[in-house]
Structure formats: C-alpha cells, structure tokens
C-alpha cells in the first residue's frame, strides 16, 4: 500500500524568510533609535563662550 508523506516546510526555510525581512528592519530600527535618543539631549544648548560674571 502506497504511503503519502506530507513534506512540512523546513524550520530553516522559515527562519531564513524571517531573517530576510528582519535584517533590514533591524538596521532601520537601530538608525531610528539612535536618532530618537537625541530627545534626551533636551536643554543641551550649544556651548557658548563663557560670559564675564555680572556684577
């Protein structure tokens, strides 16, 4: 009697498919997070030459 075997998708193939989309996403996310961290520079005004003390 002939047996039919179901070929399941390889977990490696599934992982590879996810890597293909996650690698560029991770790259973009890293760039955006680095940019987003600048919000924590709030109040850090550019260094200005020291002004003479007021009397």
């Amino acid at each position, binding site marked *: 009697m002939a047996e039919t075997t*179901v*070929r*399941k*998708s390889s977990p490696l*193939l*599934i992982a590879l*498919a*996810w890597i*293909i*989309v996650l690698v*560029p*996403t991770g*790259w*973009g*996310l890293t*760039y*955006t*997070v680095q*940019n*987003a*961290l*600048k*919000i*924590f*520079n*709030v*109040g*850090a*005004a550019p260094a200005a030459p020291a002004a003479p003390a007021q009397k």
Partner: protein
Amino acid sequence: MLGFLDRDHSVAPEGYSRWLVPPAALAIHLAIGQVYSFSVFKTPLIQYFTPFVNPANINKDIGYIFSVAIAVLGLSAALFGAWLEKAGPRRAMFYAAVCFGLGFIIASFGVRSHQLWLVYLGYGVVGGIGLGLGYISPVSTLIKWFPDRPGLSTGLAIMGFGGGAMIGSPLGNQLMAHFKAHGQPPIASAFLCMGILYFIFMMFGVFTIRVPREGWKPEGWTPSKKVNALITTHNVNVNQAMLTPQFYLLWIVLFCNVTAGIGILEDASPMIQDFFKGHVLAVAAGGFVGLLSIFNMAGRFFWASLSDFLGRKTTYFIFFVVGAVLFFVLPLTRGDHLNSVPLFVAIAAVIISMYGGGFATIPAYLKDLFGGYNVSAIHGRLLTAWSTAGIVGPLVVNGILDHYVANHMAKQDAYPTILHIMTGLLVVGFVANLLVRPVAEKHWMAEQNLKPVGSGH
C-alpha cells in the same frame, strides 16, 4: 510566461507553514512604507530643481510628489481591490513590485532630465499604483491563514508599512551620500538604485506568498462556538458592503483616527520646539520625530494583536476615549503650564501608537463585519478615508497655523486650538464606532455564490 502568478499556481501544498506568509507580506509593506520617508529627498530635490522651475512655488511643487503618491495609493486600492480578489495576491504583489520599482526608475529619468512632471508621473502615479496594490494585496490572504488571529496577522503586515520609513530614510540618505562622493548625480542615482533594490525585495514576497488550499485550517483549531454578534460567519460582497451603514461608519472611524494623528505628525518637530521654547532644540526635536515613528510602528502590531482579545469595537472605543482625553490635556504639558517634556513625549507617543493601531486593526474589523470573502476589496475602498484625511488633516493644521501667523498671534497658541479640534474629531469617531451594529441579513451572500477559499474568488 506569467502563469506562475495565477492564483491556482500559488495554492499552498500540504505541510506549507503559514509562518512563511507574514514575511512575504512584510517584504511588500517594508518596501512600500518607503513613501513615508520621502521627506529625505525633499530638500535635495528643492535645491536641484530651483533653477528649472518657478522658485516661488518650489516648496509646493516638490511637496506635490508625495501628495500625488498618497492620493493615487487610495484611488488604486479602491479601484483594484475587487480585481485583486479574482487575480490573487501573487499577481497583485507582482504588479505592485513592477509599478513601485518602475516608478522610481521613471522618477530617476525625470530628475536626470530636469523634468519634474516625469517625477510626478513616476514616483507619484506609477509608484502610487504600486503603493495601493501592495498595501491591500496580502490582507485577505493573511486573514485566511490566521483565522484564529486575524488582528495579529494583519497587524504584522501593516506594521511593516510603518517600518518601511525607518529603512527608507537611512537608505535614501546613505545612497545619496555614496553617489555624491563618487561623482554621480545623487538623487537620480539613488532613485534608480532604490527602484531596483525594492523590486528585488518585493519579488521575495511574490515568490513566497501562498494561498491556503481548500478546506485548510490551522492544526487543532476549531472556530469558536462563542457567539459574538459583531463577528459574522457570513460574507458580504464588496458592492453590497458599500450599501451598508457599517461601511460608512467605519469610513468615519478611520478618517477621524487618521486625521487626529496627522494633527500631531504634521508638525511634530515645530510643535515640541514651540511648546518648550529654548529648552527643546532642533536636534532633540528630530529625536522626538524618530521616537514617534517607533511608536507608530509598534502600535500597529500591539493594538491589532490586542484587538484579537478585546474585540475590534472595544479597541476603537479605547482609541477614541483615551485619545480624546490625551489630545485635550496635551497642551497643558507645555512650558507655561506644567512644563514637562517627558509628559508631553509620553502622551504624544501613546497617541501615535493608537494612530498606527487604527490603521492595523481596521482590516480585522472589516473581516468581522463583512466576512473574509471580499475583505481586500472592501479594505481598498475604505482606504479613501486615509487619502481624504491626508488632505483634510494638513489643511486644518496648516490653515490654523497660517491664520495665527498672519494675524501676528503667538504660533504656540495655535496648537491648543488644533489639538482641541482633533479632540472633537475623536468624539465624532467615538459616536460612529458606537453606532456599529452587525450587518443585516439582506446583505449576506448566498452560500452557492461562494467559491471555496484558496481556489480563487
């Protein structure tokens, strides 16, 4: 030659994992989401085209490229949705890849030859068709593969659209810098390169996408016996759906949610600088915009997945109630009131997460109300709400800002007015969502008119 694009050729063999389908959908959405990062080309294009067009209108003229692309996105999604249901997701994704890639290439020639109209035609019209087709193409397929988690599956794909801007922005900047350093025309070469790269990336989605075979269901899953009046077991044809009040109520829901989000997104950077004058500088404001894009993307996945447990109506109930309160109190955080930057940033981040969540949850809401049979086509027509919001939102925001500036009033005083108008819009959305009821039986399709899932409707 293009027979492999037919729906029959894309039916999944037995044992095909459904977890291969979200990456296919993500490949499309991550690519087309580039449109949200088009601003990286704005200043270079303005500088480049200034000698060739009327300099007085240059800002507007370059701005139209993005506007045309978004308008064509909505139109093509509405026009081609019904065709997509017949042709299948693979063919639609293929045409999306061709149009999106070709759009860049035409725009590249437009830039090289100093013909702005070619950029409109390429990136705006041809690319815009690719955007519309690509946006809706994986939706119904994902819903069929994930009948147990429709919100999660469509949330994943639509999250990709948010993520696409994060890839498109550094990619565009770095390509322009690279070509400039090598003595090549930076914008034209970057466009050409991006057209080819995005086409290849989208083709990965075309080859990977599969529709489930007839009668397929997730292993061990049985449809819930629990009766929920707002989750139908019937199907409604796209043309019939247009005759139901539910379609127009959801149109209002999406329109209000998107317009309100645009109220912040449109002027995020100047708003935070004006609210905290001298305290938040341009660099930090840029970081704030980046933070919003992360929450926009994350909200798409988070809220759409959560809606599988809360229900779609409850999810939008949260958006409109919490959103209205947050929009109302946001002006209180500014420098001359509470003076709290962290509070302002936190509130804006939650608001933007719900803006993204609204986009990602709507396909599952449509599936609940109208069934999965024509959901891509119905979704396509509903996206006209997005196009409309894309026009109305900036009009309201910029109109009020211009009015304040023209009348020599403080610009930062315009923002509370804008945010309170958006609060009102969210109340309208709240009422529309509250009025959503199950679709009447007279709109249901007869069972004999339904071709089996996966074999081509």
